[in-house]
């Protein structure tokens, strides 16, 4: 350990760390930085993280100077400030200053640092260097603007060190140096380069010009795209419902979690948010004379009550199908009601279609965020295909489906099922072939519209948060289940998702001891077992 002083405050930090790491760990001070990124190697080329170290003749860069016992560091002294300002002035010399038409405006480190470290007295009176690629797509996800680039090389290092796909390079010398690609930027993690680009050189084509970032509302959540459970920020437009065809979710961004995804997320997860605002089941619907018609929740619950009373008379010929896309809370109440209370003959949540691409970084083959939770809550369950087969053989009178599109078993599956099964109740987020044939359709809130938890492949329980209100008639499905149960005389008084989680933690050994507050900030490994438990988080190993 080394005893050091930063801006007059004394700290004890680990030996061998750099000054910038000490600054970031102790959080008492800050220095500007462009090239430094904790997830990448040290480049030391932007030169802006200048600090004064007593007994050193010149200011030094904080990112490549190791702390030493007794070191006295100043980030705010006259000498340090002058150095930081001088470097920033150089960085801005050839910058096009096209902030009014730059999508990075509002989250641009040139803007931010200019406010704090600018000279406010521009001396540059010359023609700026023109570079050729401005607003040029370099792949399906990213646009390049060479003139805005500060040549920090973060994108080069990301594709060299993290994805090892080596698309980026820096070409030419001197003030004509520019970032470009050797080949199209088209890898599974390409979106991250827009996140780590500190300026407007690399922007996300999906997000460009959708809205100014200062209008964004942000909520920390978990990506539902696979069983990794990358931490994300759901960034939404909440204030202007007329904007962009009423799309509310504007983008997803990764949130640092050292134990799960570090600073990154994959493109599959990043761009999968569109189903939140498109293709939704917006209204409660009931089938009348062969047609689905809008109805009220009250009428729908009454209709559901009749259906479930009927089911209760012969539950052995009823089946319940759900999916590990649901939160632990949703799955817990589903199990309590349909399996334990109603005692349906078959319960299934797993199918083979959720198995997909996997790599040795973040992307897991299991495309569900909560398979571990589902298997803990439901225990050993049949594959959905068994239920579908039984229904096709005419062994099922009623199907209660939560969020599964059975058309995956073949386009004619639902026509066959419709002919063989008397009653189909569907509860889910998006319209699909199963919801289209149901007798009763109950719209559920998407993961962006509810609080809850997912359990990832290694048994890490993490919080998801409501970022936007449920669309139209949609409600969190655990509340729907609670109402369905109430209709059958089972009164649960959970007001918040957190109450459901407390009930789950009280009943389940795996969740024992966990609370919402206790899951902060990086989630907690439960005491249950998971298929993936032996597997160390490969993100962590990286």
């Amino acid at each position, binding site marked *: 350990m080394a005893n050091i002083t930063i801006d007059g405050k004394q700290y004890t930090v680990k030996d061998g760390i750099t000054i910038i790491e000490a600054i970031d760990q102790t959080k008492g001070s800050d220095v500007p930085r462009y090239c430094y990124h904790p997830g990448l190697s*040290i*480049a*030391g*080329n*932007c*030169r*802006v993280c*200048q600090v004064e170290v007593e007994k050193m003749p*010149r*200011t030094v860069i904080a990112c*490549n100077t*190791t702390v030493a016992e007794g070191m006295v560091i100043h980030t705010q002294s006259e000498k340090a400030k002058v*150095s930081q300002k*001088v*470097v920033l*002035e*150089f*960085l801005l*010399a*050839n910058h096009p200053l096209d902030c009014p038409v730059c999508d990075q405006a509002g989250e641009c480190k040139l803007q931010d640092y200019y406010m704090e470290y600018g000279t406010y007295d521009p*001396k*540059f*009176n*010359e*023609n700026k*260097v023109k570079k050729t690629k401005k607003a040029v797509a370099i792949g399906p996800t990213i646009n390049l603007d060479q003139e805005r680039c*500060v*040549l920090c090389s973060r994108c080069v290092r990301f594709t060299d060190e993290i994805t090892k796909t080596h698309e980026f390079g*820096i070409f*030419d*010398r*001197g*003030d*004509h*140096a520019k970032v470009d690609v050797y080949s199209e930027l088209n890898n599974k993690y390409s979106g991250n380069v827009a996140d780590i680009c500190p300026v407007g050189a690399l922007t996300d084509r999906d997000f460009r010009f959708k809205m100014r970032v200062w209008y964004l509302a942000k909520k920390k959540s978990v990506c539902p795209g696979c069983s990794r459970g990358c931490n994300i920020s759901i960034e939404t437009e909440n204030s202007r419902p007329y904007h962009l065809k009423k799309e509310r979710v504007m983008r997803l961004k990764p949130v640092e979690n050292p134990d799960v995804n570090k600073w990154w997320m994959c493109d599959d997860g990043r761009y999968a948010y569109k189903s939140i605002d498109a293709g939704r089941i917006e209204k409660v619907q009931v089938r009348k004379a062969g047609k689905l018609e809008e109805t009220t929740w009250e009428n729908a619950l009454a209709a559901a009550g009749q259906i479930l009373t009927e089911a209760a008379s012969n539950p052995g010929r009823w089946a319940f199908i759900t999916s590990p896309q649901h939160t632990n809370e949703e799955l817990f109440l589903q199990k309590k009601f349909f399996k334990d209370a109603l005692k349906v003959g078959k319960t299934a949540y797993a199918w083979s279609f959720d198995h997909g691409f996997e790599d040795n970084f973040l992307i897991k083959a299991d495309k569900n965020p909560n398979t571990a939770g589902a298997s803990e809550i439901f225990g050993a369950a049949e594959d959905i295909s068994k239920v579908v087969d039984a229904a096709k053989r005419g062994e099922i009178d009623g199907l209660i489906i939560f969020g599964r599109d059975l058309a995956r078993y073949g386009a004619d599956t639902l026509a066959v099922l419709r002919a063989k099964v008397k009653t189909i109740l569907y509860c889910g987020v998006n319209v699909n072939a199963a919801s289209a044939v149901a007798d009763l359709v109950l719209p559920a809130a998407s993961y962006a519209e509810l609080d809850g938890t997912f359990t990832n492949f290694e048994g890490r329980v993490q919080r998801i948060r409501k970022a936007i209100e449920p669309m139209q008639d949609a409600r969190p499905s655990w509340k729907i289940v609670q109402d369905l149960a109430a209709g059958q005389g089972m009164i649960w008084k959970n007001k918040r998702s957190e109450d459901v989680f407390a009930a789950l933690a009280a009943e389940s050994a795996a969740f024992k001891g966990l609370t919402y507050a206790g899951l902060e900030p990086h989630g907690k490994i439960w005491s249950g077992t998971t298929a993936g438990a032996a597997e160390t988080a490969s993100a962590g190993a990286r």
Partner: protein
Amino acid sequence: MSAANANYGLAPAGLEPVVSRYFNLPDAWKIETVLKLGAYETAKKALAGKPEDVLKVVMDSGLRGCGGAGFPTGKKWSFLPKDTKKPIYLVINADEGEPGTCKDRYILERDPHSLIEGIIMSCYAIKSHKCYIYIRGEYVLPAARTQAAVDEAYAKGFLGDNVFGSGYRVDITVHRGAGAYICGEETALLNSLEGKRGLPRLKPPFPAVVGLFGCPTIINNVETIASVMHIGRMGAENFVKWGGGAIGPHLYSVSGHVAKPGVYELPMGITLRDIIYTHAGGVRGGKKIKAVIPGGMSAKILRADEIDVKMDFDSLKAAGTMLGSSGVMVMDEDVCMVKALLYACRFFAHESCGQCSPCREGTGWALKIIERIYRGEGRLEDLDTLLSVAGGMEGRTICVFAEAAAWPIQSYIAKFRSEFEDYIKSGKSAGRDMAAAHAH
């Protein structure tokens, strides 16, 4: 050799030249020529003794690097980790790119065997078995001659697995650069040698610990390693006292407006005035001196009244400039300092690797200002902006290129400010480039 350049490597009358001794000897680049004169005998003797003996004689000589920084060679060697399991590399920096410098070229071209012999001894001293000679891309003939000399040395058994039958292995690979000034910066050179972009590396770690291919590496200049052989040949004491000096012989490249430009081998510490007037024949056409750059383009300029300075590392440092690569550039009274600075700025803006923001943007910025002044569109405040750009670059970058680019700006303006101001005010040059300026 033509009469016109017969003065290359001239040592003072009556003195036996050292490093330049074969510069005027026909076919001295051929091994048969120099073997008859005793080449490789010194290395042979060294390999019969202990590595420490070579190290000691280099230490005793106080030899300092001739590439520009003047770092003591023996001390540099001592930074190598003691019990490393990795191979140790010796890299010869023959990327002689400093404007006004051409001394290493003559060693490579005219006496490459003195370098190879120095390499054998140096490798032995630092326990290295592999040496790379990195030659700048423009040096076509020097590279060809050096490669031929290396081939000859292999054929004679002076290189390879069993040097002189001693059982010691030394291999040499000649590698040609692609023509970037920055690759003369030792860590950029290492990157270039590894096949990467020639960008200087962040230090620490230093090359002696993490160098070529991640292994401990010593990088020395051509003249330095050739001198190692000569020190071994003459003994440290004779080397140091050569020519009545106190440091040893040194190669000075003299160019510009002198009557006899060339490479001169003189005792280090001779005055700049002596070099110009005693050896290089004075100023061409009997003109007066206006300014002299003592150590290559990067060195701060001296005025005519400052040329009594001694041409060694410490004296020039005390005079506010540096010996650098010992490239002496003499400017006569007709030179336009605005144009001289324009040339310097153009060079550094062209050669900045572009890695560090201050240097990347600063060298280009300075060039644009001086170009504007040169076109007659200058403003008086431009001079202070130039100084602030230069001062801003200085000391805030990975390598010393930014300093090299800043020093001409700072020194030309400091020492010739009134000329710059007159040019800006009148739009006219004080020198003979006036017509050119207006034609521009």
